[in-house]
């Protein structure tokens, strides 16, 4: 997609998402939409490290959870606003990501994946034992009534930018998703992206050709972690009650990984497609079939899909269109 068309599309979606909150009455779409967009952002962030650089991260839930808990921390500390929470979350997770990248310097492939899993367990245990943010008992978060920014009422029953917090969160998540897509696309077409690709294809060769692999790895890990942290930062306000088990749940890591696998890891389009399809499927199944059949459907879908389309959606598109032209 050429630059102009792309940015135009992004702009249009941005405006549309705001208008949706203004005109769509049925709240359910914001809940489901938020959930799907959150999955999309996590998938995109995962793909930066996993798809572009080839480093499989099992610990996405750690960055997400640490983001959520840094938001809670600043909330407890000085009653921070939602925006502050998100920014702090992003920064803290980014730092942790940086540290992780540094510690796992010499680890490749599977060892890296397991180290990230270890990170997840250690983070969860630390938070579980930290009573200031609620510990294992969990923390309640009461969103501020009628918050304002520069005098403009942001959330309120009438005369505000948004009717309620779910609409605001939906819009925020949409914005974050769009920004992440822009970032990913930018990476793909940049020197940074090419460096990552070299890393993915053959790290030793890349190093011997002078590619600064350590620097690239650190940037990719920090960026990926930071975005995941930002997503986690929105979690407390959305759920109003979080505990370590749900913030550090393995299913967050699973989804972040499954969606790019299903959609395709080559470009930003893959995670987007994967999240749209798998996310929507999960949402629909939760509120229709809804029983243990739920898990069965998702499981069968995963298995069938991965068996018949191992390159993900993008792979399918490639195969199909290649035949045609």
């Amino acid at each position: 997609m050429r630059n102009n068309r792309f940015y135009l599309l992004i702009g249009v979606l941005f405006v549309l998402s705001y208008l949706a909150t203004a005109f769509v009455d049925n709240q359910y779409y914001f809940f489901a939409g938020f959930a799907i967009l959150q999955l999309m952002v996590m998938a995109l962030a995962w793909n930066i490290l996993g798809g572009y650089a080839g480093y499989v991260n099992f610990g996405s839930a750690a960055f997400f959870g640490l983001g959520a808990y840094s938001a809670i921390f600043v909330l407890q500390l000085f009653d921070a606003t939602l925006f502050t929470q998100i920014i702090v979350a992003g920064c803290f997770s980014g730092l942790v990501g940086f540290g992780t990248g540094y510690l796992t310097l010499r680890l490749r492939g599977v060892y890296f994946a397991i180290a990230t899993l270890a990170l997840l367990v250690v983070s969860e245990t630390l938070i579980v034992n930290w009573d200031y943010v609620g510990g294992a008992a969990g923390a309640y978060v009461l969103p501020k009534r009628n918050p304002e920014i520069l005098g403009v009422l942001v959330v309120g029953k009438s005369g505000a930018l948004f009717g309620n917090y779910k609409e605001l969160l939906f819009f925020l998540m949409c914005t974050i998703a769009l920004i992440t897509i822009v970032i990913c696309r930018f990476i793909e077409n940049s020197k940074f992206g090419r460096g990552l690709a070299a890393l993915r294809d053959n790290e030793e060769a890349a190093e011997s050709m002078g590619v600064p692999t350590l620097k690239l790895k650190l940037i990719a890990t920090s960026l990926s972690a930071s975005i995941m942290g930002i997503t986690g930062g929105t979690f407390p306000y959305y759920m109003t009650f979080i505990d370590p088990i749900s913030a550090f749940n393995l299913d967050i890591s699973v989804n972040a990984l499954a969606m790019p696998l299903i959609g395709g890891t080559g470009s930003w389009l893959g995670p987007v497609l994967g999240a749209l399809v798998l996310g929507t499927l999960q949402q629909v199944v939760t509120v229709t079939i809804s029983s243990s059949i739920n898990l069965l459907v998702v499981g069968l879908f995963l298995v069938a899909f991965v068996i018949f389309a191992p390159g993900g959606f993008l792979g399918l598109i490639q195969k199909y269109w290649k035949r045609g032209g």
Partner: protein
Amino acid sequence: MLGKFGKLRRNIALVSVLGFTLILAQGLMTTATRAAEPIKIGFSMALTGALAGGGKQSLVSMEMWAEDVNKKGGLLGRPVELVYYDDQTNPKNVPGIYAKLLDIDKVDFVVSGYGTNLIAPAMPVVIQRDLVFMGLFGMNNNKKWKYDKYFQILPSGPNPAVDFSRAWFDTVMALDPKPKSIAFIAADAEFARNLKEGAVTNAKRIGLKITYNKNYKPGTPDYTPIIRAINATNPDVIYVASYPNGSVGIVRAVSEVGTKARGFGGGMVGLQFSGIMKGLGPKLNGILNYDFYVPEPNMNLYPGVVDLLARYQKIAPSRKVDPLGYYLAPWSYAYLQVLGDAVNAVGKIDHAAIAKYIHATEFSTVVGKVKFGKNGEWANGRTLTVQWQNIKKQNDLQQFTKPGIRKIMEPAAFATGTVKPFNALR
């Protein structure tokens, strides 16, 4: 990165995926052409995942309530219909489910799922729309919100975490000589931690010395090191706040290692589940634990509870749920009973009026008289402390249906026995 594709092709692909997604999503736009007839009560319930044992048990008895109400003419003359979705014991699913119930399924009333963690995420949705909300076994969900239309069916009392264990402490302090020290062990998870904090408050109030106070990770396979470490500090009584797999492990560990403590138990979830009762058998003797309903003679004075359980136990095997249903079935029936009675009494679907009525009334339910206090918690707690006694057979579930196994220690009004030291019964 798709190389030589035309952007046209990529756009087509994108659009077709979006289209596919929208078609999927359409499945959600269920028709609004429903007859105005039935009154719909919506909720999420844990039918899979860690809390599913309790969730499925509750659902069976809730469906029995709906049947009973419809036999008597329904609510406000209209038949009642339960609309529910499986939250998979995953709090993340809860907000979306309630949004769907309210915005798409257009239910008239909502009640909660089972467990504090699954009730909490529904609170903002419910509060935003100003609806009456009945809670099932949630601890302190309303403490921060202070919502005036929330009502909880957990019989702990006005200050749930502390009141929950009050009866247990009253019981152990009746041991002779009086205990002077206590050890605490709790699972690192919400309910257990809250219970323990409440229990610690009680212990401090009484002036017991705390010799050990730690938490364990829920997946731990073996508890003998913990029991030994506790024993090394020589407590007079031990308070345990655990979840099912921990409860089993701890009971086994204390059976193997033994203890000099004279009181053992407190907040062990899972000992009320049939599979676990049957599996542990005589190892349970002497344990002092919380409970909500046991088949002791004076408990059967609750109006209708004996029949309810008999009916439940007939259908339980085919529904693959807990065969006895003591733990949740009476309570999940009761929380709907309160709602139903209030709705009928008020005469119309007016949530403010219904909430006011519930605050002001003492209800007569299958779990006896229910009166709500501040924040929707019970005005008077009725958590039982029972002591397991006289369990003789291994691997026999029927022995637990007879009186004399779980003797009620507290509250005094229901007592059927006096407390004995732990080791005296083993």
